[in-house]
């Protein structure tokens, strides 16, 4: 296999590059969202307005319902809109066009249209933004047939999966974790994509499987380092896509280790971890040696106060202690 040349860039730069390259490649791709034309406010879209003009990098009024529905329409009519939702919390005002229209139209219309739409949805806590600006809501969209949901956890996946998302002929919710924007990592040079629907083993191990979603894949990697110091060899698996969910990819690791911790930033009840736990126990029941444990945000809103927020959100330490509990 030829050596892939890489360089180190941040998660937000990786997203920015993917947008540049895809807009360059396909003139049907255009961006819409609040404040996206102003580089200072949106690093992920920095420079795009200058390069491609404000027709294709289109500031919108604060009308989430309106511009999301408009994106569905433009997609039906053959364009490939990429929306910037700014925060997933604001999507609460735009769920109808996403869940009732984008996800279902192709099906309801018997395949007459497709909706090649990408919704970039930054989310997550850790910056004292409080209950309405810190939510992680990706679990909702696993339940909506017709949507793809992507949850990249590092710069290379962010770029490769965003490029795939833009080329995908179906509506994609592309979740970006605000806590990861500054995370740096190796990213291949040139044009590459990552496959949608395929989990990735981020670290191989044999004692326990740590499944981390988005920001928590990072915490799982950190946790695996800490565990290694105590002689525990953890495997870290990142589903990368949660709709469709690569159940086999996840169950395969659990069959090997027999133990599993799932970490996510959303609330525990009804979270992504619930689905993964339910499907993994169905698929790998015979291999499981212990219950699957979920590490997630506590079932309370995310408070503003730094200390309280830290109590509510998951962390590397919480992953470590969950793993140790299973191994004890």
């Amino acid at each position, binding site marked *: 296999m030829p050596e892939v040349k890489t360089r180190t860039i941040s998660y937000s730069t990786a997203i920015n590059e993917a947008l540049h390259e895809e807009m360059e490649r396909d003139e049907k791709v255009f961006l819409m969202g609040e404040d996206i034309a102003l580089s200072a406010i949106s690093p992920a879209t920095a420079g795009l307005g200058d390069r491609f003009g404000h027709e294709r990098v289109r500031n919108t009024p604060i009308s989430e319902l309106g511009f999301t529905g408009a994106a569905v329409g433009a997609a039906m009519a053959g364009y490939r809109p990429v929306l910037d939702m700014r925060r997933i919390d604001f999507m609460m005002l735009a769920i109808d066009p996403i869940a009732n229209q984008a996800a279902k139209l192709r099906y*309801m219309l018997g395949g007459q249209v497709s909706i090649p739409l990408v919704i970039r949805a930054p989310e997550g806590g850790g910056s004292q933004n409080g209950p309405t600006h810190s939510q992680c809501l990706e679990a909702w969209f696993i339940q909506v047939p017709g949507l793809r949901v992507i949850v990249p956890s590092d710069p290379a996946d962010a770029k490769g999966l965003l490029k795939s998302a833009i080329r995908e002929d179906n509506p994609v919710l592309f979740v970006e974790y605000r806590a990861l924007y500054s995370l740096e990592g190796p990213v291949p040079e040139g044009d590459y994509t990552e496959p949608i629907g395929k989990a990735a083993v981020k670290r191989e191990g044999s004692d326990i499987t740590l499944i981390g979603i988005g920001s928590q894949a990072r915490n799982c990697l950190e946790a695996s380092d800490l565990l290694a110091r105590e002689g525990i060899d953890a495997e870290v698996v990142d589903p990368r896509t949660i709709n469709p*969910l690569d159940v086999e990819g996840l169950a395969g690791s659990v069959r090997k280790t027999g133990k599993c911790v799932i970490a996510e930033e959303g*609330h525990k*009840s009804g979270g992504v971890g*619930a689905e993964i736990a339910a499907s993994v126990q169905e698929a790998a029941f015979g291999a499981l040696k212990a*219950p699957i*444990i979920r590490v997630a945000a506590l079932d309370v*809103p995310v408070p503003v106060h730094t200390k309280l927020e830290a109590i509510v959100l998951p962390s590397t330490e919480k992953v470590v202690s969950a793993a140790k509990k299973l191994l004890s």
Partner: protein
Amino acid sequence: MPELTYVEALNEALHEEMARDEKVFLMGEDVAFDYFGVCSGLADRFGRDRVRDTPICELGFTGAGVGAAMAGFRPIVDLRFMDFTTYALDPIVNQAAKLRYMLGGQLSVPMVARIPSGAGLQYGATHGQSLEAWFMQVPGLKVLYPSCAPDAKGLLKAAVRDDNPVMFIEHRLLYAQKTKQSVPEGDHTTPIGVADVKRVGVDATIVGIGYQMGHCLEAAEALAVEGIECEVIDPLSLSPLDVETITASVRKTSRCVIVEEGHLRSGVGAEISAAIQEAVFEYLDAPIGRVAALMAPIPVQTKLEKFVLPSTEKVIAAVRKTLGVAA
């Protein structure tokens, strides 16, 4: 004990609660006229001020419900189709569920959202969804889903009296049921957060959500003929979820199937399954099974709709699978 249909039970609860507490009022599209009989007689009895038709503006009137609740009233908003809540999620998820918490307990939001749900009427993908799992992930909301007349009445009364926002889910096919059931006399409420064992058994536990309870009981009936005794549990309240009652049953039976009408992935069954295996892993003799809508939108065509939705036959097959017995 009086005998009531599901619709009559809901209707009685509304009459009684509106008569009991003048802070209770009802708001929604066509509530004064009401197609289904749930609101029968309310407008005549309590006036159009308290039984308030709204324009088609789910965002507006649900938000208004939150505001009225903040100011001390007890609004009941009628969202007509669960699918329409997609327009009203901001006031429900970002406001009603969080306000008390964000404001450090300065106020509460005693609002009930009545949410008729459910497929099976060939209304298609946008008029029959079951989205209750969404609300389970929102701390601050309570989510109730009664499957029969007595629970419907007792829970709706409890919901109206609860000081928190309650998503009260109803099912359109239950509206259509003409069978009457005994409902406790007088001012009776059903406790929120307590599951109900609808049938006792030892071989497998079936957890049925809302309308699917009917399929579960039919399945249990059919399996009993073959000597398989199922315990059937209705959580009644999805949030808070009574994990204790469910796991107590699974400790006894060691096998469990969860049945819901929502789509499989990340549905109510996912949470219940994850919670059960976490609590009583060592008692389980087989993987926890789930019966749910297939991962396709609900098609209009009758045959296709049936294929996508759960059914008594699918429940029976799932129970057999968990027991390792062939049909």
